[in-house]
């Protein structure tokens, strides 16, 4: 125990640390690729080389080229920017909205809470992707519509999660202490209760990134999200769909990129969950 204590804090063994650090490594590599895209990518992601259409992976183009002669590797690297943005923003909006609504509802209870729970029931009755697709249909295709639809639909899970935590915590002694000191409701809610209730939501947010990333890529694959010629993994797979007999690399590599990133997010979620003792 003394030996372990002498190590720096982040190196001390804890359950799930291999999982957590592997996940951080994978996501970190993706973030790095996104940041360094202009220097890492060997070609311009939208440059069309008419002489190298559907070139197989090889010396000139490591991962081959697509039907317009664009370098697949460069597009995969540049797409990391778009897909990471999808995962982070797509989780951030629902997280913030849901957490605020759930905290307030759980803290005050009563009619507002009851109505809120019914709304959550109704939203959850719709298949997630179907509702998102329907909202995008109204707003028009595009990434912005995707974020709006996610904010409209995704907050319910976060609200439900935080609400259940607040319900458990609000009868705790420290809340009573804060109240007897005459603190305002908003101070008790957001400075005393919320920090204690957030753990589960943060772990859930990490696993939600997988869902949102796959959702965003799927929406783009269907032609309702990111629009060409922007490089995005889901679109790249869609563009390769018509060429699966001649050019397997067009579909294969962008998909592997999605898989690596979502695997990284899953590992972080698992590792954090194990470390913090959160059960799914």
């Amino acid at each position, binding site marked *: 125990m003394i030996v372990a204590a002498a190590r720096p804090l982040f190196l001390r063994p804890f359950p799930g640390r291999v999982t957590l650090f592997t996940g951080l490594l994978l996501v970190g590599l993706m973030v790095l690729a996104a940041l360094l895209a202009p220097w890492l990518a060997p070609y311009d992601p939208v440059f069309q080389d008419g002489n190298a259409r559907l070139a197989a992976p090889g010396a000139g183009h490591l991962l081959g080229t697509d039907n317009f002669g664009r370098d697949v590797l460069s597009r995969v690297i540049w797409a990391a920017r778009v897909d990471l943005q999808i995962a982070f923003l797509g989780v951030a909006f629902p997280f913030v909205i849901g957490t605020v609504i759930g905290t307030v509802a759980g803290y005050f209870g009563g009619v507002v809470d009851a109505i809120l729970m019914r709304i959550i029931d109704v939203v959850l009755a*719709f298949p*997630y992707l179907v509702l998102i*697709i*329907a909202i995008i*249909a109204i707003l028009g295709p595009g990434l912005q519509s995707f974020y709006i639809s996610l904010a409209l639909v995704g907050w319910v899970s976060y609200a439900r999660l935080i609400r259940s935590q607040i319900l458990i915590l609000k009868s705790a002694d420290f809340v009573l202490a804060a109240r007897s000191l005459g603190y305002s409701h908003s101070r008790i809610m957001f400075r005393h209760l919320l920090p204690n209730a957030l753990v589960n939501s943060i772990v859930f947010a990490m696993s939600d990134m997988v869902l949102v990333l796959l959702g965003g890529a*799927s929406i783009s694959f269907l032609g309702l999200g990111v629009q060409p010629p922007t490089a995005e993994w*889901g679109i790249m*797979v869609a563009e390769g769909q018509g060429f699966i007999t001649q050019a397997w690399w067009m579909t294969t590599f962008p998909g592997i990129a999605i*898989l690596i990133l979502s695997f990284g997010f899953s*590992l972080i979620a698992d590792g954090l969950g194990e470390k913090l003792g959160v059960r799914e």
Partner: protein
Amino acid sequence: MHRYRFVLFRPLQFLPVLFGISVITFVLVRLIPGDPARMLLGTRATASALERIRAQYGLDEPIWVQYLYFLKNLSAGEMGRSIVFKTDVLKLIATRIEPTLVLVTGSVLLAILIAVPMATIASRQRGRMPDQAVRVVSTLGLGTPPFWLALMLMIVFSVKLDLFPVSGYGRTLSEKATHMVLPCLTIALSLSAVLTRSLRASLIAQITSDQATAARARGLSEGAVFWRHVMPNAIVPTLNLLAVNIGWLIGGTVIVESVFAIPGMGQLLIRGIFSRDYMVVQGVAMCFAVATVLVNFLADILTVAADPRVKL
């Protein structure tokens, strides 16, 4: 039988949810930019014809009256007409149910067939190599984009090995069966990842439970304890998880039907969106939502039937 009393009362609790579903789908369609009367008649319609259509469909009434009309039509099984297919939306959906139902049931069965052995191995070899391997595989499965997996299976099994047709649904029973193998496999591989993780966790909890220890004390072999006492108890929460995930499963069928060109409800939804056939979008979304509510109700009944301690 009093345990099953909730079967009578639960549908009453569904009423607010069904009401909410109808409000959301109604609002969604009304939010669409553009004049529905013009959409129905086309750009060359005369002003008087537009006026007549508006009066006929109640479009000149206040919004809440329009909603009541919508409910009245709905109760008569009337969901409007498809502009593209020129038929009743409900009839259109009816012709599309079969492929989707086959896809969902096929992939659920396949997913269980994959998940049970995986979770069995993982839980009985807990912490050792097979467990770690199952964990990595199921985590990868969770993160695999279904549209990509579909194309990968297509490249390997249809293009390279020529074992299954690339896409479509077919007419005869055997044709349909061969067409559905890869689509079902696509969803099953993702779904089995979710099921494996859940089943492994509840198997581990059951292996160390008192009733398993009691069975061992009675001299039962470890295999007998596992299959007769551990598995039946562990599988109930996992089957319940299946019901919770039905919405996710439907989302998967939407994508997979689009990739494999299967004429199901999901493909109808996507086509409806691209052709701005909003009555179809409304109808399909509503059917999916009602199906989700129904499946969860069925899961409640099954849970009570499987476990006498549960009271709902």
